[in-house]
């Protein structure tokens, strides 16, 4: 992979009033990697992005490296970072081409070189043929690609995006998520982006850092985060998970609706809770299962349906299943849960 490596070494941020926005954090972003900083507002993700950008200095002990050079005290304009803001503002009185070439023009690069680079970036960002258009004549998605093209035109070492899609309405956001994933990958620039939307993080990033209250709780590839979350917060934040409470006795987990045989070794069930993803529960005839529940409701979702079960444990249990099977309200069903789908988590 080409690109620049980012290293944060023990970076924390404490504001003058004593609030700690970021606890000491060390992470490495590999050359060409796309890292998402994911978490609710106030989790420290924006502070971390600002430290990487050079918009914020870490507390005294923290260091930021781009490859081997210490950039901790270098201001943003000298760090060679391209930054795309959520509320990107383009030049309204300039064409797409002029917008993209702007940063290069200021750097006094020759007209021919600017033209070549703008052509190249427009092709990468699928803006061919739109060069002479006025910004006002573009769709939201196209404008967003122009903002990205403008940021990458000067060939930054690092690309930083602040909530890249949240300015767009929901329908467009889903469509652009996949487009942006493909686009960022083709740029092969080391990229860090901030989002509060787990679907966005999972779809776009190579690795996701899940953050809460100034800490990175887990940093892993999306599949691993989903299937093997480290704790309950991560499990809930990266996808819906059922919390099943019961009592563990030897390897038998007893719940209101019956019992589940857990394998040897799963002994550290904290607070007598286990977690299971909604799609990991299969519904089978009650006679075939030791664990049963009652159908409380079923909701047709098009490509799936959501069944809510009562009487399995204290909480209601959500199951995502095929859209075709019919379930009656009040019907008794059996639950089939594969042992490998049971998440045993530390509490948050």
């Amino acid at each position: 992979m080409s690109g620049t490596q980012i290293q944060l070494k023990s970076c924390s941020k404490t504001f003058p009033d004593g609030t700690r926005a970021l606890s000491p954090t060390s992470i490495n972003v590999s050359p060409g990697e796309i890292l998402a900083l994911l978490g609710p507002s106030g989790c420290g993700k924006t502070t971390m992005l600002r430290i990487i950008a050079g918009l914020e200095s870490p507390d005294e002990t923290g260091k930021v490296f781009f490859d081997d050079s210490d950039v901790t005290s270098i201001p943003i304009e000298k760090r060679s970072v391209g930054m795309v803001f959520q509320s990107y503002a383009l030049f309204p009185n300039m064409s797409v081409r002029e917008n993209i070439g702007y940063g290069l023009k200021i750097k006094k690069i020759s007209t021919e070189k600017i033209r070549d680079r703008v052509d190249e970036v427009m092709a990468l960002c699928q803006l061919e043929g739109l060069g002479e258009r006025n910004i006002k004549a573009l769709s939201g998605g196209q404008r967003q690609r122009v903002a990205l093209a403008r940021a990458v035109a000067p060939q930054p070492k690092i690309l930083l995006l602040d909530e890249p899609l949240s300015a767009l309405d929901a329908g467009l956001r889903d469509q652009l998520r996949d487009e942006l994933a493909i686009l960022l990958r083709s740029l092969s620039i080391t990229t860090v982006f901030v989002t509060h939307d787990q679907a966005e993080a999972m779809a776009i990033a190579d690795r996701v850092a899940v953050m809460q209250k100034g800490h990175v709780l887990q940093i892993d590839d999306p599949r691993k985060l989903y299937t093997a979350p480290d704790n309950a917060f991560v499990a809930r934040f990266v996808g819906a998970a059922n919390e099943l409470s019961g009592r563990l006795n030897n390897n038998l987990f007893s719940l209101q609706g019956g019992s589940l045989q857990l394998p040897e070794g799963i002994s550290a069930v904290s607070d007598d809770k286990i977690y299971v993803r909604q799609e990991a529960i299969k519904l089978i005839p009650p006679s075939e299962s030791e664990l049963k529940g009652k159908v409380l409701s079923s909701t047709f979702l098009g490509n799936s349906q959501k069944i809510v079960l009562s009487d399995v444990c204290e909480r209601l249990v959500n199951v995502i299943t095929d859209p075709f099977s019919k379930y009656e309200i009040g019907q008794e069903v059996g639950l089939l849960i594969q042992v490998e789908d049971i998440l045993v988590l530390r509490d948050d």
Partner: protein
Amino acid sequence: MRKVTKFVQLTDTHIVREGELAYGVVNTAEYLERAVKVINGLLEYIGPIDGVVVTGDLADFGAAEEYQRFKELIKPLKFPVFVLPGNHDNREQMRTAFDFTNETGPLNAHVKFGDCHLITLDSLVTGSPHGLLTDKTLDWLKCELGELGNEPVSIALHHPPFVTGIGHMDRQRLRNSEQFLNIVAQHKGAKQVICGHVHRHITYFDKRCPIVISPSPAHAVALDHRENGPSDFTLEPGGILLHTLIPETRDYCFRSEFVPVSPFKGPYSFGL
């Protein structure tokens, strides 16, 4: 080739609905009409103008009809007009009425008049008269300025980042002035900050950057430096500012001049 750039600052026009008067007294539309005529009438004497920036409080209540009326009134201006919101404005109504490139968030923009960069900032705090630039706006400003090197820039916002001495207005000035001016100070090229809000022509020489407030073409906030002076306005002569960016040997300089829009006598010849 570096060249002279001229642009007009118009501010605090406080347009109300047809048939209404601002504060029951001021026919603000008539003043704006007059300002537009003055600007167009100046062209013969001062040469071409590159554009107009309106530094907030375009409308009195932020209603859609008020923005439509504003747009009708400025139609005779045949150059680009860029706007930013003041405390009387409504952000979303303005986003709809004017061409902003961002669909959400603050109405910040970066445009160019001739050689001059103009960065317009949104300091509106919905529901409050005071101003504040959000952290995201300040970050964005820092990035935009960082990219400009030593090119000249005029930074426009509604709320002045300094104390004018008029108590009731100072209580609703820009809250994070220090943060803002410290960022502006980092810019290496020629720079100025231009604002509105106070309806008076006031200049301020902070060592980080010169700042100028434009008067409104309509009503003025009464000059009163007493601590608890009442919040009064007068109909003393209002106006607009004409900003000129001049290329000097090494760098650019900004010149800003007051142009009254109220009727006056003259010109008379000095020659006998």
